[in-house]
């Protein structure tokens, strides 16, 4: 029938909470294979398991004397959460002091098992208690379901009756609904203001529901009078007025006990909803408190709705005007106390009436909501709500496991953090940790600095900004992982500013983060050599120029061209050519410091940039000789064009444009120097001067520079 009865057929789960392993083993052994056993060795762990498994646990065997959080504290926490209603707790202890026993029962313990354990007693108590709770759960569910059905049917019947009358009156179709709504709002306002009338939820619901019947007597009034557009004659009006007494008489004639509350209330409303506080109403001319409250309230609701609705004989008055007319006594006298209530609800009234009239399914939807709300408040959750809850929990777990969430919850009062891990992370988290700020296990996992920083950010949370979001790298005992952390501080409603606890979740974002950083790397680097690509080089050189400027130094940019590279490709194949490029790239990288820039800016063209030393020549010389070598029989020779920035680090923070121009200018000069150099002959380096590029060749090639050697394709440029 329901999940709760299905559960009784499955193997039941029992949570055994005892600090002594021997005791847990004894109890587990005694219970035998018929049960699934979860164990917890202290109170905090027990709460963690309860939090995680919820109603999957059929019974808790709970020791009293335990370190850190004892059995009574566990029971108190369960009681506060309402768990003891759902999950029976049997205390197991040799502690039989009367006050302890009494305290445990007060906090909802279901039973006691005394030491020494007797296997038959342990088994019998456990099965009996589980059966009892399961039966009770099913019964509560059945009662709630039946009440729900019955009340729904009753309400439906009554609104059908009300609508029949309305239909015959040719009214808008909303009159009964509106009277319902206004009556309920007035009654709630009355109940909130005074307890003079002894109005409880049940009474309010009854009067509200019964208000639908106020005009049933009108079915005895001829249609010609009901729908007459003009003013009624005195005779017609006298006939019209009989509907109140007729409606009441119809109820009296019912073969039902007249003391039935619904019938009694309906009688009051039908007969006296046209009475007025000063005795000027009909049919009986009752005055003051002789008119029952139900009739007074419905009368007021009826008048308000009549005024604000269009009728065959009148236009609709606006809301403000209607209230003004009623309070001004234009529609007969009402109890001043009720008029105050009307004025009080007036601001919300119009909105509520509009909202309900726009919902086509209003009566059914509201009735359902009202009744289920009512039932769920009167009785403990039914199997229906338990099923819904189970469903929600299952849904949540599913989504949480997809995102590999780790959820946590901390209450300031207990100072215990409960973890629920929904992912398979390859590391294990404790279920519950007390004193989390000083726990060595947490420190090992998340890092003491991270924990402290998080605590500080939470402490700074406010009710307006209660959430903390951050990415953090957790050391995870030596294999660091990235997590995204979302947390929310829970504030006390009574004491502003007091933090009651924290809820939150950790999402493992390690892989996403790795992928992103991998993609980022790929976008900025040359796939063959792993050096920065041309676009990235521009950025890096810009940064180097900034650094140089700050240090009051010049920037040196070197364009390096691999001589005769094409011959490597042509004579030994492209794979070999690639190997040469990789080798050369790493050689170039090794020739400079780590924070110097090395990039591949073309097929066989590279770039090196750094903050220039006072005298750059020795450095250039060293680089040049380092990269001139032989790779697998292929002699590597390079030509270098060098440009130095003009040393005036004037502007503090160069703009993007000036930086770009500076880069282009520097690169251009270095490139021209290289070109000039190559024209003179391969293998060597040349510094660019600002005006022209004077070539100072490595092997005193000044002599050769005069020879204007043609740049052939074979030179690979």
């Amino acid at each position: 029938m329901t999940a709760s009865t299905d559960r009784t057929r499955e193997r039941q789960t029992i949570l055994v909470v005892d600090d002594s392993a021997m005791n847990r083993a004894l109890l587990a052994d005694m219970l035998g294979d018929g049960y699934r056993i979860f164990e917890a060795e202290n109170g905090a762990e027990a709460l963690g398991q309860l939090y995680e498994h919820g109603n999957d646990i059929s019974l808790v065997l709970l020791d009293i004397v335990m370190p850190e959080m004892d059995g009574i504290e566990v029971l108190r926490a369960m009681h506060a959460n309402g768990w003891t209603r759902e999950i029976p707790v049997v205390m197991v202890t040799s502690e039989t002091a009367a006050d302890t026993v009494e305290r445990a029962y007060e906090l909802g313990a279901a039973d006691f098992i005394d030491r020494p354990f007797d296997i038959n007693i342990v088994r019998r108590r456990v099965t009996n208690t589980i059966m009892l709770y399961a039966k009770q759960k099913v019964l509560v569910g059945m009662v709630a379901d039946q009440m729900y059905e019955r009340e729904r049917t009753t309400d439906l019947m009554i609104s059908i009756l009300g609508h029949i009358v309305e239909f015959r009156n040719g009214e808008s179709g909303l009159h009964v609904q509106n009277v319902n709504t206004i009556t309920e709002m007035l009654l709630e306002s009355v109940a909130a203001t005074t307890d003079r009338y002894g109005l409880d939820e049940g009474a309010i619901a009854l009067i509200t529901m019964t208000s639908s019947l106020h005009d049933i007597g009108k079915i005895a009034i001829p249609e010609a009078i009901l729908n007459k557009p003009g003013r009624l004659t005195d005779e017609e009006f006298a006939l019209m007025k009989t509907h109140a007494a007729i409606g009441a008489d119809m109820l009296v004639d019912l073969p039902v006990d007249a003391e039935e509350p619904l019938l009694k209330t309906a009688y009051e409303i039908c007969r006296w909803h046209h009475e007025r506080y000063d005795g000027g109403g009909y049919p009986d001319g009752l005055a003051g408190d002789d008119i029952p409250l139900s009739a007074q309230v419905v009368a007021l609701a009826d008048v308000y709705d009549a005024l604000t609705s269009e009728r065959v004989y009148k236009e609709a008055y606006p809301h403000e005007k209607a209230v003004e007319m009623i309070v001004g006594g234009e529609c007969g006298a009402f109890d001043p106390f009720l008029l105050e209530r009307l004025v009080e609800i007036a601001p919300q009234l119009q909105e509520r009436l509009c909202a309900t009239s726009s919902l086509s399914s209003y009566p059914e939807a509201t009735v359902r909501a009202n009744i289920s709300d009512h039932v769920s408040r009167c009785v403990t959750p039914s199997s229906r709500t338990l099923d819904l809850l189970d469903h929600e929990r299952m849904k949540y777990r599913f989504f949480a496991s997809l995102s590999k969430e780790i959820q946590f919850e901390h209450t300031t009062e207990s100072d215990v953090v409960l973890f629920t891990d929904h992912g398979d992370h390859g590391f294990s988290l404790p279920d519950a940790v007390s004193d989390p700020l000083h726990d060595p296990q947490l420190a090992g996992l998340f890092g003491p600095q991270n924990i402290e920083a998080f605590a500080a950010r939470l402490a700074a949370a406010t009710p307006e900004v209660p959430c903390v979001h951050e990415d953090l790298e957790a050391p995870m005992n030596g294999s660091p992982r990235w997590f995204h952390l979302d947390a929310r501080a829970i504030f006390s409603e009574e004491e502003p500013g007091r933090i009651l606890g924290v809820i939150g979740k950790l999402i493992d974002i390690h892989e996403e983060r790795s992928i992103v950083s991998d993609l980022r790397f790929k976008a900025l680097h040359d796939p063959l050599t792993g050096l920065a690509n041309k676009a990235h080089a521009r950025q890096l050189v810009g940064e180097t120029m900034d650094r140089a400027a700050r240090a009051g130094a010049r920037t040196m940019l070197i364009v390096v061209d691999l001589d005769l590279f094409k011959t490597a490709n042509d004579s030994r194949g492209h794979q070999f050519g690639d190997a040469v490029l990789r080798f050369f790239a790493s050689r170039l990288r090794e020739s400079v410091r780590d924070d110097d820039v090395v990039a591949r800016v073309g097929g066989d063209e590279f770039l090196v940039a750094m903050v220039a030393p006072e005298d750059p020549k020795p450095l250039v010389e060293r680089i040049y000789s380092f990269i001139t070598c032989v790779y697998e029989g292929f002699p590597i020779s390079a030509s270098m064009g060098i440009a130095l920035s003009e040393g005036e680090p004037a502007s503090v923070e160069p703009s993007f444009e000036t930086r770009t121009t500076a880069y282009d200018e520097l690169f251009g000069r270095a490139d021209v120097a290289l070109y000039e150099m190559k024209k003179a002959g391969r293998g060597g380096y040349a510094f660019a001067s600002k005006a022209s590029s004077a070539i100072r060749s490595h092997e005193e090639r000044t002599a050769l520079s005069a020879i204007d050697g043609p740049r052939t394709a074979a030179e690979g440029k």
Partner: protein
Amino acid sequence: MALEEFYGAIGGDLDDVRSRLLTDERVEKFVRAFACDPTFAALEEAYAAGDAESAFRAAHTLKGIGRDLGFTALQASARDLADALRADGEGRFGSLQAAEALHERTRTDHEAVMTAMPVLDR
């Protein structure tokens, strides 16, 4: 036979234990498990550290296990020790020094149980 001999040696109540745990296998299993139980060591540790609260808890647990397994003498001395160390209304635990004699008796009774253990293997 070994169980009778063991309980004879320590003056324990085997009949009562049998009536509660039903089978000799179960009784023997848990008597043997007691040899590895850390509760008594925890009591000694608490005494050495001067920690009355932990000592009370250990004595209390020892009493419980002693009763379950019918160790008549041990459960009585552990019970008396636990009672002596039990916290008063204001949460103050009893004095370890004042309960030293009871501690000594508990140790002797525990020793007797441990000494008799090898009987089970005969």
